[in-house]
Protein backbone atom coordinates (compact mmCIF):
# COMPACT_ATOMS: atom_id res chain seq x y z
CA UNK A 1 0.00 0.00 0.00
CA UNK A 2 1.67 3.21 -1.11
CA UNK A 3 1.72 6.10 1.29
CA UNK A 4 -1.05 8.48 0.32
CA UNK A 5 -0.31 12.15 0.14
CA UNK A 6 -2.54 14.88 1.49
CA UNK A 7 -3.64 16.94 -1.52
CA UNK A 8 -5.57 19.94 -0.20
CA UNK A 9 -5.31 22.01 -3.40
CA UNK A 10 -6.86 19.52 -5.79
CA UNK A 11 -9.30 18.46 -3.07
CA UNK A 12 -10.48 22.05 -2.71
CA UNK A 13 -10.86 22.52 -6.48
CA UNK A 14 -12.71 19.22 -6.75
CA UNK A 15 -14.94 20.13 -3.84
CA UNK A 16 -15.89 23.45 -5.40
CA UNK A 17 -16.69 21.66 -8.68
CA UNK A 18 -18.89 19.16 -6.85
CA UNK A 19 -20.63 21.93 -4.92
CA UNK A 20 -21.16 23.83 -8.17
CA UNK A 21 -22.72 20.74 -9.71
CA UNK A 22 -25.11 20.40 -6.79
CA UNK A 23 -26.04 24.08 -7.02
CA UNK A 24 -26.48 23.93 -10.80
CA UNK A 25 -28.72 20.87 -10.66
CA UNK A 26 -30.81 22.50 -7.98
CA UNK A 27 -31.07 25.85 -9.75
CA UNK A 28 -31.68 24.41 -13.22
CA UNK A 29 -33.88 21.46 -12.41
CA UNK A 30 -34.83 21.69 -8.75
CA UNK A 31 -33.18 18.33 -8.13
CA UNK A 32 -30.89 16.98 -5.45
CA UNK A 33 -27.57 15.65 -6.77
CA UNK A 34 -27.62 12.46 -4.76
CA UNK A 35 -25.97 9.84 -6.93
CA UNK A 36 -27.52 6.74 -5.36
CA UNK A 37 -30.99 8.26 -5.66
CA UNK A 38 -30.48 9.36 -9.26
CA UNK A 39 -29.23 5.88 -10.11
CA UNK A 40 -31.64 3.92 -7.95
CA UNK A 41 -34.80 5.57 -9.14
CA UNK A 42 -34.00 4.35 -12.63
CA UNK A 43 -34.71 0.87 -11.27
CA UNK A 44 -37.95 1.88 -9.67
CA UNK A 45 -40.87 1.00 -11.93
CA UNK A 46 -42.67 4.12 -10.78
CA UNK A 47 -39.55 6.23 -11.15
CA UNK A 48 -39.88 9.61 -12.73
CA UNK A 49 -37.87 11.75 -15.04
CA UNK A 50 -35.72 9.14 -16.69
CA UNK A 51 -34.30 11.71 -19.13
CA UNK A 52 -32.65 14.01 -16.60
CA UNK A 53 -31.38 11.10 -14.53
CA UNK A 54 -29.70 9.56 -17.56
CA UNK A 55 -28.35 12.97 -18.64
CA UNK A 56 -26.75 13.57 -15.24
CA UNK A 57 -25.24 10.08 -15.04
CA UNK A 58 -23.99 10.36 -18.63
CA UNK A 59 -22.25 13.60 -17.67
CA UNK A 60 -20.57 11.88 -14.75
CA UNK A 61 -19.40 8.97 -16.86
CA UNK A 62 -18.16 11.32 -19.60
CA UNK A 63 -16.31 13.59 -17.15
CA UNK A 64 -13.04 11.64 -16.98
CA UNK A 65 -12.88 11.64 -20.78
CA UNK A 66 -13.07 15.43 -20.76
CA UNK A 67 -10.35 15.41 -18.13
CA UNK A 68 -8.19 13.27 -20.41
CA UNK A 69 -8.94 15.49 -23.41
CA UNK A 70 -7.51 18.35 -21.39
CA UNK A 71 -4.29 16.37 -21.34
CA UNK A 72 -4.39 15.13 -17.79
CA UNK A 73 -4.18 11.58 -16.56
CA UNK A 74 -6.95 10.80 -14.06
CA UNK A 75 -5.39 10.05 -10.68
CA UNK A 76 -5.51 6.78 -8.87
CA UNK A 77 -5.96 3.21 -9.91
CA UNK A 78 -8.40 0.37 -9.77
CA UNK A 79 -9.85 -1.43 -6.79
CA UNK A 80 -7.66 -2.42 -3.89
CA UNK A 81 -9.73 -5.49 -3.03
CA UNK A 82 -10.56 -8.68 -4.91
CA UNK A 83 -13.65 -9.34 -6.97
CA UNK A 84 -15.63 -11.08 -4.24
CA UNK A 85 -15.15 -8.28 -1.73
CA UNK A 86 -15.83 -5.71 -4.42
CA UNK A 87 -19.13 -7.37 -5.29
CA UNK A 88 -20.13 -7.66 -1.62
CA UNK A 89 -19.23 -4.00 -1.09
CA UNK A 90 -21.25 -2.93 -4.12
CA UNK A 91 -24.25 -4.90 -2.93
CA UNK A 92 -24.08 -3.32 0.52
CA UNK A 93 -23.66 0.15 -1.00
CA UNK A 94 -26.63 -0.37 -3.30
CA UNK A 95 -28.94 -1.84 -0.68
CA UNK A 96 -27.81 0.47 2.11
CA UNK A 97 -28.16 3.68 0.13
CA UNK A 98 -31.70 2.73 -0.86
CA UNK A 99 -32.64 1.81 2.68
CA UNK A 100 -31.05 4.95 4.12
CA UNK A 101 -32.04 7.14 1.19
CA UNK A 102 -28.68 8.55 0.40
CA UNK A 103 -24.94 8.22 0.03
CA UNK A 104 -21.90 10.47 0.33
CA UNK A 105 -23.36 12.95 -2.13
CA UNK A 106 -27.03 12.95 -1.16
CA UNK A 107 -26.55 12.98 2.59
CA UNK A 108 -22.92 14.03 2.93
CA UNK A 109 -22.93 17.02 0.59
CA UNK A 110 -26.52 17.94 -0.34
CA UNK A 111 -28.16 17.05 2.94
CA UNK A 112 -25.59 18.77 5.11
CA UNK A 113 -25.67 21.82 2.83
CA UNK A 114 -29.40 21.94 3.49
CA UNK A 115 -28.77 21.38 7.18
CA UNK A 116 -30.97 18.28 7.24
CA UNK A 117 -30.84 16.53 10.64
CA UNK A 118 -31.41 13.18 8.93
CA UNK A 119 -28.46 13.73 6.64
CA UNK A 120 -26.21 14.87 9.48
CA UNK A 121 -27.01 11.67 11.39
CA UNK A 122 -26.67 9.46 8.31
CA UNK A 123 -23.35 11.02 7.34
CA UNK A 124 -21.93 10.64 10.85
CA UNK A 125 -23.09 7.02 10.90
CA UNK A 126 -21.69 5.96 7.55
CA UNK A 127 -18.40 7.77 8.19
CA UNK A 128 -17.96 6.03 11.54
CA UNK A 129 -19.07 2.66 10.18
CA UNK A 130 -16.78 2.93 7.16
CA UNK A 131 -13.83 3.96 9.32
CA UNK A 132 -14.62 1.09 11.69
CA UNK A 133 -14.75 -1.33 8.77
CA UNK A 134 -11.36 -0.14 7.51
CA UNK A 135 -9.96 -0.43 11.03
CA UNK A 136 -11.15 -4.03 11.34
CA UNK A 137 -9.97 -5.00 7.85
CA UNK A 138 -6.55 -3.35 8.13
CA UNK A 139 -5.63 -3.41 11.77
CA UNK A 140 -7.52 -6.34 13.29
CA UNK A 141 -7.93 -8.93 10.54
CA UNK A 142 -5.09 -7.80 8.33
CA UNK A 143 -2.86 -6.49 11.12
Amino acid at each position, binding site marked *: MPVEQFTPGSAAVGGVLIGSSVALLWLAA*GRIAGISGILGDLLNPGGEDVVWRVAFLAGMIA*APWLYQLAGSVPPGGGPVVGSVLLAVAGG*LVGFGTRLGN*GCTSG*HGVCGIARWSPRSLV*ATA*LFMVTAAGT*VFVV*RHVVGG
Partner: protein
Amino acid sequence: MRVFIVFAAGLLFGLGLTVSAMIDPAKVLAFLDIAGDWDSSLAVVMACAIPVAAIGFRWGPRRGAPPAGQCGGWGIDARLVAGAVLFGVGWGLAGYCPGPGLVALGLGRPGSGLFVASILGGMALFELLGVRRAQRRHAG
Protein backbone atom coordinates in the same frame (compact mmCIF):
# COMPACT_ATOMS: atom_id res chain seq x y z
CA MET B 1 -31.97 22.95 -23.14
CA ARG B 2 -32.49 21.91 -19.56
CA VAL B 3 -31.21 18.43 -20.30
CA PHE B 4 -27.88 19.91 -21.44
CA ILE B 5 -27.59 21.88 -18.22
CA VAL B 6 -28.25 18.69 -16.27
CA PHE B 7 -25.62 16.91 -18.37
CA ALA B 8 -23.20 19.75 -17.60
CA ALA B 9 -23.99 19.37 -13.91
CA GLY B 10 -23.12 15.68 -14.18
CA LEU B 11 -19.88 16.62 -15.94
CA LEU B 12 -19.00 19.04 -13.15
CA PHE B 13 -19.69 16.41 -10.52
CA GLY B 14 -17.57 13.81 -12.30
CA LEU B 15 -14.76 16.31 -12.90
CA GLY B 16 -14.81 17.25 -9.23
CA LEU B 17 -14.44 13.63 -8.20
CA THR B 18 -11.67 13.14 -10.76
CA VAL B 19 -9.69 16.30 -9.97
CA SER B 20 -9.83 15.59 -6.24
CA ALA B 21 -8.76 11.96 -6.82
CA MET B 22 -11.85 10.71 -5.00
CA ILE B 23 -12.15 8.17 -7.80
CA ASP B 24 -9.09 6.50 -6.29
CA PRO B 25 -10.29 3.93 -3.75
CA ALA B 26 -6.84 3.84 -2.14
CA LYS B 27 -7.13 7.55 -1.37
CA VAL B 28 -10.64 7.21 0.02
CA LEU B 29 -9.55 4.30 2.20
CA ALA B 30 -6.59 6.39 3.39
CA PHE B 31 -9.14 8.93 4.62
CA LEU B 32 -11.17 6.26 6.36
CA ASP B 33 -8.07 4.67 7.91
CA ILE B 34 -7.79 6.94 10.90
CA ALA B 35 -5.45 4.53 12.67
CA GLY B 36 -3.13 4.40 9.68
CA ASP B 37 -1.44 7.03 7.53
CA TRP B 38 -4.44 9.36 7.61
CA ASP B 39 -5.14 11.43 4.48
CA SER B 40 -7.73 14.09 5.24
CA SER B 41 -8.22 15.13 1.58
CA LEU B 42 -11.80 13.80 1.49
CA ALA B 43 -12.72 16.09 4.36
CA VAL B 44 -11.34 19.04 2.38
CA VAL B 45 -13.43 18.01 -0.63
CA MET B 46 -16.59 17.96 1.49
CA ALA B 47 -15.69 21.14 3.35
CA CYS B 48 -15.38 22.97 0.02
CA ALA B 49 -18.35 21.32 -1.69
CA ILE B 50 -20.87 21.93 1.11
CA PRO B 51 -20.71 25.77 1.28
CA VAL B 52 -20.93 26.09 -2.52
CA ALA B 53 -23.91 23.73 -2.55
CA ALA B 54 -25.48 25.62 0.35
CA ILE B 55 -25.30 28.86 -1.64
CA GLY B 56 -27.16 27.15 -4.47
CA PHE B 57 -29.87 25.88 -2.14
CA ARG B 58 -30.16 29.29 -0.51
CA TRP B 59 -30.64 31.05 -3.84
CA GLY B 60 -32.59 28.31 -5.49
CA PRO B 61 -36.26 27.98 -6.27
CA ARG B 62 -38.82 26.78 -3.78
CA ARG B 63 -36.84 28.05 -0.86
CA GLY B 64 -38.48 27.02 2.34
CA ALA B 65 -40.72 24.45 0.72
CA PRO B 66 -39.83 20.77 1.10
CA PRO B 67 -37.98 20.21 -2.15
CA ALA B 68 -38.67 17.36 -4.50
CA GLY B 69 -36.34 14.49 -4.00
CA GLN B 70 -35.32 15.53 -0.54
CA CYS B 71 -35.35 13.21 2.39
CA GLY B 72 -35.86 15.71 5.17
CA GLY B 73 -39.53 14.96 5.60
CA TRP B 74 -39.09 11.89 7.74
CA GLY B 75 -37.67 11.39 11.13
CA ILE B 76 -34.42 9.77 12.13
CA ASP B 77 -35.61 6.19 12.22
CA ALA B 78 -34.26 2.65 12.27
CA ARG B 79 -34.39 2.51 8.50
CA LEU B 80 -32.10 5.52 8.13
CA VAL B 81 -29.69 4.12 10.70
CA ALA B 82 -29.61 0.62 9.19
CA GLY B 83 -29.17 1.99 5.68
CA ALA B 84 -26.32 4.30 6.67
CA VAL B 85 -24.58 1.49 8.55
CA LEU B 86 -24.86 -0.99 5.65
CA PHE B 87 -23.63 1.66 3.23
CA GLY B 88 -20.75 2.50 5.56
CA VAL B 89 -19.61 -1.12 5.71
CA GLY B 90 -19.72 -1.40 1.92
CA TRP B 91 -17.88 1.90 1.47
CA GLY B 92 -15.23 0.88 3.97
CA LEU B 93 -14.70 -2.53 2.36
CA ALA B 94 -13.89 -1.24 -1.12
CA GLY B 95 -13.32 2.51 -0.87
CA TYR B 96 -15.92 3.15 -3.53
CA CYS B 97 -19.23 4.95 -3.14
CA PRO B 98 -21.69 5.31 -6.04
CA GLY B 99 -20.30 8.51 -7.63
CA PRO B 100 -16.68 7.45 -7.90
CA GLY B 101 -17.83 4.00 -9.02
CA LEU B 102 -19.62 5.57 -11.98
CA VAL B 103 -16.68 7.78 -12.93
CA ALA B 104 -14.35 4.78 -12.69
CA LEU B 105 -16.77 2.96 -14.97
CA GLY B 106 -16.46 5.82 -17.45
CA LEU B 107 -12.71 5.31 -17.38
CA GLY B 108 -13.11 1.59 -17.84
CA ARG B 109 -11.10 0.92 -14.72
CA PRO B 110 -10.80 -2.73 -13.73
CA GLY B 111 -13.51 -3.88 -11.36
CA SER B 112 -15.66 -0.79 -11.89
CA GLY B 113 -18.21 -2.68 -14.00
CA LEU B 114 -18.49 -5.35 -11.32
CA PHE B 115 -18.85 -2.73 -8.60
CA VAL B 116 -21.56 -0.73 -10.40
CA ALA B 117 -23.39 -3.93 -11.35
CA SER B 118 -23.28 -4.98 -7.69
CA ILE B 119 -24.69 -1.61 -6.61
CA LEU B 120 -27.54 -2.09 -9.08
CA GLY B 121 -27.98 -5.63 -7.77
CA GLY B 122 -28.24 -4.39 -4.19
CA MET B 123 -30.71 -1.72 -5.25
CA ALA B 124 -32.77 -4.23 -7.22
CA LEU B 125 -32.81 -6.57 -4.22
CA PHE B 126 -34.10 -3.70 -2.11
CA GLU B 127 -36.90 -3.08 -4.58
CA LEU B 128 -37.72 -6.79 -4.76
CA LEU B 129 -37.92 -7.14 -1.00
CA GLY B 130 -40.50 -4.43 -1.00
CA VAL B 131 -38.82 -2.62 1.82
CA ARG B 132 -39.56 0.53 -0.04
CA ARG B 133 -42.49 2.46 1.23
CA ALA B 134 -44.57 5.10 -0.39
CA GLN B 135 -41.71 7.51 -0.84
CA ARG B 136 -40.48 7.61 -4.35
CA ARG B 137 -37.86 10.27 -4.03
CA HIS B 138 -34.98 10.86 -1.71
CA ALA B 139 -31.64 12.50 -1.21
CA GLY B 140 -29.83 9.74 -2.95
